[in-house]
């Protein structure tokens, strides 16, 4: 019955080249930690399968995988076994996408792109953490999560300002080399 409550094996976000942007693999207590090589192999397999077959519903390595393409970013939710209920996985995926869109929204667009994903990385990680807790579906109601981690909160703004600071600093650093 472990798989009944530990429903989520992984949440994986890849870019258009299959490069990892964010991966959370969940290993319930008492099970071995997934080695990095296994994660890399699994992600490569997912990307190859979904890219070549234009398929967002797959059984890979005896796990149910549900995915979605968002402009230049791929988002996948991996069930823990063949016994996963696909609709529970879909709930998680839909909530992830909806919150990512809010996090990545700009004046010009509500698309999730690699650029906006990375620029709002901390906020996105907080959202993932509120949706799945070590493989257990923790919350899938969007409003509830937004109340717990408000977008309008300082985190986003201060992060943007910090990004600008970092860029200024990088420029200075580069100038120093010249």
């Amino acid at each position, binding site marked *: *019955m472990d798989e*009944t*409550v530990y429903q989520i094996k992984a949440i994986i976000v890849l870019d258009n080249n299959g490069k*990892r942007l*964010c991966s*959370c693999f969940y290993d319930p207590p008492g099970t071995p930690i997934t080695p*990095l090589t296994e*994660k*890399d192999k699994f992600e490569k397999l997912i990307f190859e399968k979904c890219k*070549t*077959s*234009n*398929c*967002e*519903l*797959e*059984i890979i390595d*005896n796990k149910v995988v549900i995915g979605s393409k968002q402009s230049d970013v791929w988002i996948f939710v991996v069930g823990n*076994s063949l016994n996963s*209920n*696909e*609709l*529970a*996985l*879909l*709930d998680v995926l839909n909530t992830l996408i909806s919150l990512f869109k809010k996090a990545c929204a*700009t*004046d*010009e667009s509500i698309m999730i792109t690699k*650029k906006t994903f*990375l620029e709002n*990385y*901390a906020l996105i*990680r*907080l959202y993932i*953490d509120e949706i799945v*807790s*070590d493989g*257990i*579906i*923790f*919350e899938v*109601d969007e409003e*509830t999560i937004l109340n*717990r*981690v408000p*977008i*309008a*909160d*300082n*985190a*986003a703004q*201060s*992060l943007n*300002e*910090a*990004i600008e*600071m*970092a860029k200024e600093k*990088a420029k200075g650093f580069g100038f120093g080399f010249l």
Partner: protein
Amino acid sequence: MASRVQKKDDDESDFLFENLDKGQVIQEKRAFNESPIHPRKCSLVISQFLYLLSRGDSFTKTEATDIFFAATKLFQSKDIPLRRLMYLLLKELSTISQDAIIVISSLTKDMSHKIELYRANAIRILCKITDSSILPQIERYFKQSIVEKDPHVSSAALVSSIHLLKVCPEIVKRWANEVQEAISNKSNMVQYHALALLHRIKQHDRLAVSKLVSNLIKNSLRSPYAQSYLIRCCVEVIEETNTEDRIFREYIESCLRSKNEMVAYEAARSICTFKNVSNKEINSAVGVLQNFLNSTKPTLRFAAVRTLNKLAQTNPTAVIPCNLDMENLITDTNRSIATLAITTLLKVGNESNVERLIKQIANFLGDINDEFKIVVVDAITSLSQKFPKKYKHLIIFLNKILRDEGTLQLKQATLDAILTVVNNIPESKEIALTELCDYIEDCDFPDLSVQILHLIGQEGPLTSSPAQYMRYIYNRVLLDGGIIRAAAVTSIAKFGLLYEPMKEKVVILLQRCLLDEDDEVRDRATLYLKLFKENDVRYLNKVLMDDVPVPLNNLQKSLELYLHQGDFSEPFDIASVSTVVETYQSPLLGDGKSPFSTGASKKGDSVTGTPKSNNASNNNNNNEESSGPESFATKLSQIPQFSTFGKLLKSSEYIELTETETEYVVNCVKHIYREHIVFQFNCTNTLNEQQLSNVSVKMVPSDPKLLKYECSIPIDVLPYGEPQQCYVAIRYIPANGYPLCSFSNALKFKVKEVDPSTGELDEPGYDDQYSLERLEIVPKDFLNRAFVGNFSEEWKKMSEDTQLVQTFSLVGVKSIDEAVKQIIKTLGMAPAEKSEVVTPKSAKHILYLTGKSLNNQLIYVRARMKLDQSQTNTDVELTIKSDDESLNDFVISAFIEK
């Protein structure tokens, strides 16, 4: 929402974090020590650490600990966004840091903080670093949090407790009352988490689980997640208790009508897995799945068709109402859905709709990739066994796949499928050969052409008009590369050998090959021409028709092992090579691997392979072959008790002593030595709540005088799911004859219960035993297969003075085909002259077998058989020839008892 201005500059094309350097970021942790704390700067640094961790950068324990310690300074900050990130970072680092325990006092303080965010996050981190000595001190806070009204805090406590249940089960179990109270929380997720935790707390008390589940059924759960979980609990109760109480099944049935699709699907799927399911129940469940097949949501279609695909394997009739809906899914834009629909339809199709179905699938093939096509090919192959009369449509369909664009892997799978159909349905041979001839006219893969030429050479001369194939074969000589030309030359020669009217033409064609630019082609043509001119039919047969009788991969492995062992005192024995073909794995529909098959040797009886063309003639024997002694000899010779037994002469096939679904799964291999027999028992414990120790098999022989007990080697510890071996060795005296007898057997062991949440054993355990099937030592245990080039010639050489003729009846054997299989199985000898192939519906047949005793005396057997007048038994005249009369008597004794 505040507007954010996107600043344009030269760095726009660079992605943030892309060139992050771990060493530099570690230096940045200085920001955590600054006073006062700068939230914006610290937030950026935390983001960078999170990215590095997720990217896969590894931190040493020291590095992780340093960062962890630095981050704990942020507990002073009152900036809530920064605190959120701090908690996240600590959570990520807590499992890879040393001395994470340092934050317990800070987290404990946060557990009683007035801000819910602090309380929830503190709890979630604490469950990662707490242990059985710390938990009692903070138990009070956990219990308070579980019954907290705020769902963030309550869920955090409940989910953390689910994790903690594996760490400190005794303590968490004390919170059952609080968890029960939390089920009434207004939040759907809290209700779900509380149910999951309470169920797991009571999991080892079946009566308590049953009571909990039935109570919750009466008090309606609100949360869809809780309802789905409760359905699984019901399934568990039904399967584990065989309860007569209908409340559990009725609840699942009522959930079929849920408006929440996740719940309705969970209910339908559960009903489809019931072992004893009523027609009413299954029809209702299938009805729900049928609706889902027409959903606009791909995930719902996928879930439904996947469940129906599984159901079609156990209950195909139940799936038939969905056929039309699934036919619409053949063209689904989602390829997984389409492929599942196809393979399900192929499982439940009936004879009248097979043709239409194949046509629909053919139209769709261009849209799917090779991996999915292989799944379809596999399903078509299975279909041919169900509907042999439809072979024409199936062959044409497979041929279409063969001709389309595709990888070598797909082509090989398709060719294998065609060969399987031809082997199973002899009537399909001519149409298949015709299609394959067309194919090799324009084939991009030399390996496939060679295989097909081999098949044409072997089967073409036996068809109604052999001449038609010659043009295609000779075109290969004119148009293709050297390897293919060489194969074509051999095929041409086979026609000359097997079809007398074409002999002269074949000679003419071979003469034209003498000028070929390729050595191999010229050499073959030269050899065959010489043999034809000398009319050396015996040698032509030997050169052209005698296939290597074993799979080439297995032959290669055995030869490599022979060379590696370095003992060349005896010549390499081809009879020792296994003829079991490796199983082909379906990429999409393969079931999850059971732990019981991990590490266990592959059982001969369970192997069903797709034969390669050069192994086609061995297809009938796959299930009867011994595994090669080499693979066992190495292992057994490393066991000191057996090292003095000498050379291992033979190992038997696997003999199942239990059913595979029982608590303990046992099979046996008999290893025959000159004066000893070793029984190897492969044992698997399929109960995860038990560990067995001191496992052995008690064997009681039916005739103790024939043999003496030598020794027994038990299994010290047999955990769940890990197959291991125990052994019993006996001694016999060959001069006194073979120790043919039977044994009654029992598995004896000590049982220790395992607590699944802690892994602890319940000492000291208790002794128990488990009955096994009877085991027999039979004549074929002392016989090996042998291979001779020309049976009839060797048969004539053997004196009739020493031959033994015996007639008997195979009672209840109603067909010649069955009689042939039974005789081959009983004697364990190799069929010769392809005599194991029986004309369908034949009333009489002659079977030739060759074998040898363990001391290498050759044995020839001819079995003439016919159905008796009543058509219910088969009369057999067995003639046995060898140089040893007593050996003949021994062979016939295999049938005397019947």
